[in-house]
């Protein structure tokens, strides 16, 4: 899949909406996958026979195997292709390490497949500790500069702005980027003169 297929004629809000929708879907998908593991943990043997389905008690599965039909990939791929044209996400595949615990969640770290959300690739990793979701993090994140700068702006929309205006107040000191000695003296004199 090509990355950064950013359409420059899209409006700014469409870009952001698509990204957040896709990112939300990936998170929701990862959370749902964990939920599936919990509910399927006791019937793991029965569920694992359908051509490479993913389940907690089986050996770590081949990431290229088909997703468990009927539930996981059906809902997620439907939602994803509605948001943007991407490949359907696979079920979380690689359990880097696992150990059992009494609550039914398998401790370990689960890595999701890489999803192309149209503005880059997203890959989520989920960590289970003591049977609970301890962390969900992005392993891959769209790093197109333009997009991430827009997202940064979205993250901090509340910083105030103002047009700069000349001030006529008295000052003791002046802060500015380094000048040469001559330029400094000249401009310092005139600045302080202007300030009085």
């Amino acid at each position, binding site marked *: 899949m090509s990355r950064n297929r950013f359409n420059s004629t899209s409006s700014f809000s469409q870009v952001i909406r698509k990204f957040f929708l896709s990112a939300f879907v990936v998170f929701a998908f990862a959370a749902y996958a964990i939920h599936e593991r919990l509910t399927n943990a006791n019937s793991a043997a029965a569920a694992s026979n359908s051509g490479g389905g993913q389940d907690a008690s089986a050996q770590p599965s081949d990431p290229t195997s088909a997703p468990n039909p009927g539930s996981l990939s059906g809902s997620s791929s439907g939602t994803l292709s509605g948001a943007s044209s991407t490949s359907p996400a696979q079920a979380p595949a690689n359990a880097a390490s696992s150990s059992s615990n009494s609550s039914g969640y398998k401790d370990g770290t689960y890595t999701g497949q890489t999803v192309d959300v149209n503005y880059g690739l997203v890959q989520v990793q989920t960590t289970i500790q003591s049977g609970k979701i301890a962390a969900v993090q992005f392993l891959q994140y769209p790093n197109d*500069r333009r997009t991430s*700068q827009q997202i*940064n*702006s979205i*993250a*901090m929309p*509340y*910083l*105030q*702005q*103002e*047009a*700069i*205006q*000349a*001030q006529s*107040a*008295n*000052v*003791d*000191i*002046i*802060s*500015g*980027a*380094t*000048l*040469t*000695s001559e*330029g*400094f*003296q000249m*401009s310092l004199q*005139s*600045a302080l003169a*202007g*300030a009085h």
Partner: protein
Amino acid sequence: MGMPVTVEVVEAADESLFDEVFEYFGYVDGKFSTYKAASEISRINRGELEWEHASDDMKLIFQLAEQTRIESNGYFDIRHQGRIDPSGIVKGWAIYNAAEILRKRGFVNYYVDAGGDIQASGKNPQGRAWRVGIRNPFQMDVIVKVLSITDCGVATSGTYVRGQHIYNPKDGEDALAEILSLTVIGPDVYEADRFATAAFAMGRSGIDFIECLPGFEGYMIDRNKQATFTTGFARVGTA
């Protein structure tokens, strides 16, 4: 480097005090100036001096720079195209040390200004907080904002003056032309300077970085003559 230095002490002080402060800046310049062929940093850059044989201050600066690089997610980096230029952290460090000379001598009301970065302590001759004007990057003899400060540091990063070298370590193509000036107010001038340099390399996001840094305020001026400032800036910046 070769930046102009201004020291003002409100209490009565002997001239030898100022000599000591200016001598210290001379020492720093002689060691860290990339414009001086005989400086220690120039010899390191030419490969004439091994890291193990560098002076204590040079090693200290390298450690502080590395710490700043990590704290700024890589945006502060004294290495560029195979050369090392530590001026983005040396300046604030030197001003801080110079002010310490005054503080340890028992002086309370003073400031040290080197190249527009300032450590201010106590009160000005009128008994008020020190008033610092932020220069208009579009008109050098005009002030666009006044800060009222005491016992803290102010540093302004900018590329509107020739000779100022700040780069975006994450994108060599980035000309850093969007933001002309970023003024950072911090607990002391060493902190303000290193983070002003780091934040400037982040472009427009630099002010967000300062906003998220507890104990720091910032005032950023972009090429459209628009200023963006942190939520706590009103504490130090008057209208």
